[in-house]
């Protein structure tokens, strides 16, 4: 029972005080009230009291009523009043405790809203638990569903728990209570046996952390003293466990969402990166779009570009000698070498067609020319390696043309492709095939030459004009000699002006002159296959004469 002082009941000016005074007045003899030490509290004492009666609370005397035998009534009354006061106080203390608990829970709730980190929430919870329920040690264990193991996100106090043993023995924990109950246990033999807790721990108090009916883990506190924990402690721990469970569950869900969102983003980024490798980014950008997903059927743009084709001479014969796998490797390594050259010269590969590559240079024809020269050099390197390996050399032809091009997205709703449609493409392809005809590895059209900046280091030989099959207009064909190896380049450079002069005579049907010059050239440069070609033609015309309406242009009878 709570302590009550008699002074507080009758000593102050209150209702009881007045009532008792009035009662004492009624009595014949004088009556007065003293506390347990004899100090006067109420009334007027006389010399010696006739009788004295105690006022009791819980078998303890807390005061005296002195007077005559009637004082007993007052003593009994006071005893009753004192007892009631004690009961009231006890109730008051209990309510205050509950209020304090309420305050704890309120504050704890607020703290929980400040963080979304599950580990931080666990630590806050354990701190609060140990603050409100004095303990020597505490841990929070959480079951990790993904890893299928027990984690210990928070610990506090002395080292009374062996975490390793704890983690390795989830079964024992389930036995003692991770089953969902919350309890105070003093039978710790099994836990001590397994080395999970130290021997000087006397009792454990734990509360399961649950969300709906799923058990996430538990708060476990350990105490070394006897009777350290009470039912009130257990109630509080259960409340804290409930609050933190919900908060931790939310936090983990939040983390999971963030993680999944990031993974999705990374996957999207990977897809985006990959699509760039299959549909050139430059193509998409030219359409004014940023990503493949922005592109629509019908999107198109018209631009002046240089289209370049390259392919491997006599590939069909070569491939006959190889297995399909060897073929694939061969073409692949060829493409792998040329690709970088194109890209480093502001071009992009529009398509791989078997042994052929189609590239587009949207900025400047000079880019294409530089790329072509680079590609030729790459082929020379390749041939060096092939020779060392005992393989035959390969020859590649490069042709380019500059003109208007429409790049667009064609197809239907379910099958779309990036298409380049225009005469420019066809012409470039035809020019490339002329490399076989003129026995020259690098040809361009006069259109390309026109768009070239005057200041450049490239050297050209004019090879006359052609009338392509199925077309009416004439096209001037030009050879660029920069791609040849050093020796050949020097020779051709030396004979450059002579060659152009010879071509001029040839065009003017001055075949005698042309013949002479071509022969001189060939003396100095016997490997000049193109000169050979025109020499033979000259000889032919000298022998047979020219056809009627000969314009000097080659008539292409095949594509």
């Amino acid at each position, binding site marked *: 029972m709570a302590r009550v002082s008699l002074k507080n009941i009758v000593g102050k000016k209150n209702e009881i005080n007045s009532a008792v005074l009035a009662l004492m007045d009624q009595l014949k003899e004088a009556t007065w009230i003293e506390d347990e030490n004899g100090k006067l509290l109420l009334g007027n004492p006389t010399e010696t009291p006739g009788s004295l009666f105690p006022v009791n609370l819980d078998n303890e005397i807390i005061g005296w009523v002195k007077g005559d035998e009637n004082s007993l009534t007052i003593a009994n009354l006071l005893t009753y009043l004192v007892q009631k006061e004690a009961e009231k*106080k006890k109730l008051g203390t209990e309510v205050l405790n509950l209020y304090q608990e*309420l305050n704890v829970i309120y504050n704890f709730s607020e703290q929980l809203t400040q963080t979304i980190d599950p580990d931080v929430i666990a630590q806050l919870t354990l701190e609060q638990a140990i603050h409100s329920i004095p303990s020597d040690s505490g841990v929070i264990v959480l079951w990790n569903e993904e890893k299928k193991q027990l984690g210990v996100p928070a610990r506090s106090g002395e080292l009374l728990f062996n975490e390793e043993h704890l983690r390795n023995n989830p079964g024992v924990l389930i036995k003692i209570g991770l089953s969902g109950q919350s309890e105070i246990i003093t039978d710790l033999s099994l836990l001590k046996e397994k080395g999970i807790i130290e021997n000087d721990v006397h009792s454990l108090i734990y509360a399961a952390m649950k969300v709906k009916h799923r058990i996430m883990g538990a708060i476990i506190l350990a105490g070394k003293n006897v009777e350290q924990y009470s039912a009130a402690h257990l109630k509080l721990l259960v409340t804290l466990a409930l609050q933190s469970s919900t908060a931790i569950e939310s936090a983990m869900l939040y983390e999971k969402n963030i993680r999944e969102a990031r993974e999705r983003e990374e996957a999207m980024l990977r897809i985006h990166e990959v699509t760039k490798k299959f549909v050139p980014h430059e193509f998409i950008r030219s359409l004014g779009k940023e990503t493949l997903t922005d592109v629509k059927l019908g999107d198109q743009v018209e631009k002046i570009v240089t289209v370049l084709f390259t392919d491997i001479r006599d590939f069909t014969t070569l491939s006959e000698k190889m297995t399909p796998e060897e073929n694939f490797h061969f073409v692949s390594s060829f493409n792998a070498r040329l690709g970088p050259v194109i890209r480093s010269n502001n071009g992009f590969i529009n398509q791989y067609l078997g042994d052929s590559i189609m590239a587009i240079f949207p900025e400047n024809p000079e880019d294409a020319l530089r790329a072509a020269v680079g590609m030729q050099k790459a082929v020379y390197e390749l041939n060096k390696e092939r020779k060392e390996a005992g393989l035959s050399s390969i020859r590649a032809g490069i042709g380019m043309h500059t003109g208007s091009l429409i790049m667009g997205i064609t197809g239907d709703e379910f099958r779309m492709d990036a298409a380049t449609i225009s005469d420019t493409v066809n012409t470039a392809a035809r020019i490339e095939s002329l490399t076989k005809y003129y026995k020259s590895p690098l040809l361009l059209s006069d259109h390309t030459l026109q768009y070239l900046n005057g200041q450049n280091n490239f050297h050209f030989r004019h090879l006359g004009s052609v009338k392509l099959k199925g077309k009416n207009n004439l096209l001037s064909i030009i050879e660029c000699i920069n791609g040849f190896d050093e020796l050949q380049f020097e020779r051709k450079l030396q004979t450059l002006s002579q060659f152009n002069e010879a071509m001029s005579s040839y065009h003017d049907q001055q075949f005698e002159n042309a013949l002479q010059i071509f022969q001189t050239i060939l003396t100095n440069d016997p490997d000049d296959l193109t000169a050979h070609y025109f020499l033979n033609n000259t000889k032919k015309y000298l022998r047979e004469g020219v056809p009627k309406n000969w314009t000097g242009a080659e008539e292409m009878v095949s594509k």
Partner: protein
Amino acid sequence: MEQKILIVDDEAHIRMLIEQTLEELEDEGVEFLTAENGEIALEIIQKENPKLVFLDVMMPKMNGMEVCRRVKKELELKDVFIVLLTAKGQELDRQRGQEVGADVYMTKPFDPEIILSKAKEVLGIE
């Protein structure tokens, strides 16, 4: 001289709780007074001159803010230490509390430990 504490709240259980919290001060000779609304509180303050007043804000007849304003701004009773009590979530009241001259501002549920230590501080005990 005996020091007095006035507890003003329209809810009986709050009055009782605060008294319970400050119980030990009774042994130091502190007298507890209570009031259940602002009007009565004002009367008692003027009559009994308490050193410390716990004043709830939301009350009928006259609310705590008004009582505080009258005591601090009109009557200018400087020796009266006023603690305003209000429900959580009414943070705007904090500013108003400052305007009417309150000495301390606390939210409910109050922390009993803090109430006790503040009382001891104001009354100069321990």
